[in-house]
């Protein structure tokens, strides 16, 4: 089993696409400063599915916001292909825990929002939006408004919106956290399928251990607050992964490793 490596060994991985170096984040609150992230260094390779796994409050959402250029790190730097990020990145697709759809726009209209922002050619973008919606099983729902869609459908629209401009990187912040177990399984399978076809770099924030193991090439396990990189785990399961694979000893071993880590850190407690 992998030993806990010092964070520095993860910096500047060869061919790193997204690179976080010594990133810390301190929030000012009424009760004084709160350290959300401490000295996190990680490099995501191009086309890699990298998950960030940790307990609530470990700063993993903050990490994603910093990677998106939406939050400034208090210390350290984010770079893409060596270029330091100083402003919100627009070359990415981002999916939040809630779908964040505009209630006054249809499913198609919400996906097209991204196309409008990028000034993509309208008819081509529309065709692509329809294709994407179709690919996640939303054919026939293009003209429905968010309130007419189920939670899972809304999150699918949100995923399509993040993909229509064919981004290099997809940033996902607990995208399936608010969904029921079955819908969640389906969306995880859908996401794997989409990733298999496009192979964009994915940064996937989650607190679900099986979800992270199922989807990832590597999992970055975080410590409780202040969030630090605890252990990097390579998931060497064959792809595409199937639901049946979840029952295999290899899969279980990965889960075990992570749970043991959480038990050791006091995130989980067996009475």
């Amino acid at each position, binding site marked *: 089993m992998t030993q806990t490596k010092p964070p520095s060994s993860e910096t500047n991985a060869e061919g790193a696409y997204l690179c976080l170096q010594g990133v810390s984040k301190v929030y000012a609150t009424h009760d004084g400063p709160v350290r959300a992230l401490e000295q996190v260094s990680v490099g995501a390779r191009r086309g890699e599915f990298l998950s960030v796994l*940790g307990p*609530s*409050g*470990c700063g*993993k*959402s903050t990490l994603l*916001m910093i990677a*998106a*250029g*939406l939050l400034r790190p208090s210390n350290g730097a984010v770079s893409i292909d060596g270029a330091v990020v100083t402003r*919100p*990145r*627009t070359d*990415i697709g*981002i999916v*939040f*825990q*809630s*779908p*964040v*759809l*505009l*209630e*006054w726009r249809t499913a198609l209209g919400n996906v097209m*929002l*991204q196309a*409008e*922002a*990028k000034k993509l050619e309208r008819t081509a973008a529309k065709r692509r939006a329809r294709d994407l919606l179709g690919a996640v099983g939303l054919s026939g729902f293009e003209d429905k*408004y*968010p*309130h007419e869609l189920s*939670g899972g459908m*809304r999150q699918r629209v949100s995923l399509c919106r993040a993909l229509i401009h064919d981004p290099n990187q997809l940033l996902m912040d*607990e995208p399936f*956290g*608010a969904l029921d177990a079955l819908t969640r399984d389906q969306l995880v399978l859908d996401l794997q399928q989409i990733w298999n076809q496009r192979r964009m770099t994915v940064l996937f*924030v989650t*607190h679900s251990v099986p979800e992270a193991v199922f989807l990832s090439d590597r999992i970055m396990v975080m410590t409780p607050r202040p969030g630090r990189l605890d252990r990097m785990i390579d998931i060497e399961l064959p792809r595409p992964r199937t639901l049946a694979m979840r029952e295999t000893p290899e899969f279980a071993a990965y889960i075990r490793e992570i749970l043991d880590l959480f038990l050791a850190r006091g995130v989980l407690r067996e009475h």
Partner: protein
Amino acid sequence: MAEAERSLPRSPAVGVAEPEASTERSRARREWRVRIRNVLYPVGVVLGVLVIWEAGTRMLAVPAFLLPPPSAIAVSFIANAPLLLFHGWITTAEILLGFALSIVVGIPLALAIFLSPTFSRSVLPLLVSSQAMPKVAVAPLFLVWFGFGLLPKVLIAFLIAFFPVVISTAVGLASIEPEKIYLARSMGFGATATFFKFRLPNALPAIFGGLKISITLAVVGAVVGEFVGGDVGLGYLLMVANGSMDTRLLFAGIVALTVLGVVLFLLVELAERLAIPRHIIAGDRGVHETA
């Protein structure tokens, strides 16, 4: 399990279609009953009140100058229809101008309050005191300043009506999920596009909420202006009717004002429906957890 299956009636004729149809029928019946009730009950209450009023004034022989029966008010209303229409038209003009001024001044003001915390802190005390101040008290001052024409009534209507527009617009603009703004920025929308594509549509339900309060207040403002110093308008007509003890006409004027207020309110509601075709506030708002 097997026992339970055996005990169930296994008739092929009774499928799921039969209960489905009967459920649908009873649902339709229930809906129909609710619809009838929604119309019948309020109309019934109003009619009941009118009947009691009519019977009461007649049986107790209440003098007409104290409380005329509804039938007498109706007669007066019809007889004075041209008069009510003429004065009503003036009042409507004052209300609409005051309301329009509330929008024209209120929305940019709200925008400035939203954009600049310094401006907000500087003008909010003044705004709040302008609301706390009784408008009836300044009405005579407005007459001195602006004469007896349309202008002082419009200004009083505006003074009463603009506050809810300002507050609801400012609140509407400020209340947006932070994720929507993050989304706009990560998509690459500039400040102007973010405002028009995200913030303003998001604020529309709140803005219309303010406009609906504002239009009813504008009616009050116009009438107050006419009370204090007018020679036309429904408010003036009420004063005249009161002065000549024509209580029937007084009531007819009140009825006219009520109808006017309700119609204007409904017009704003219609505008709201047109501006927000899907007038649905998302149910998933405010359930974000940050990890």
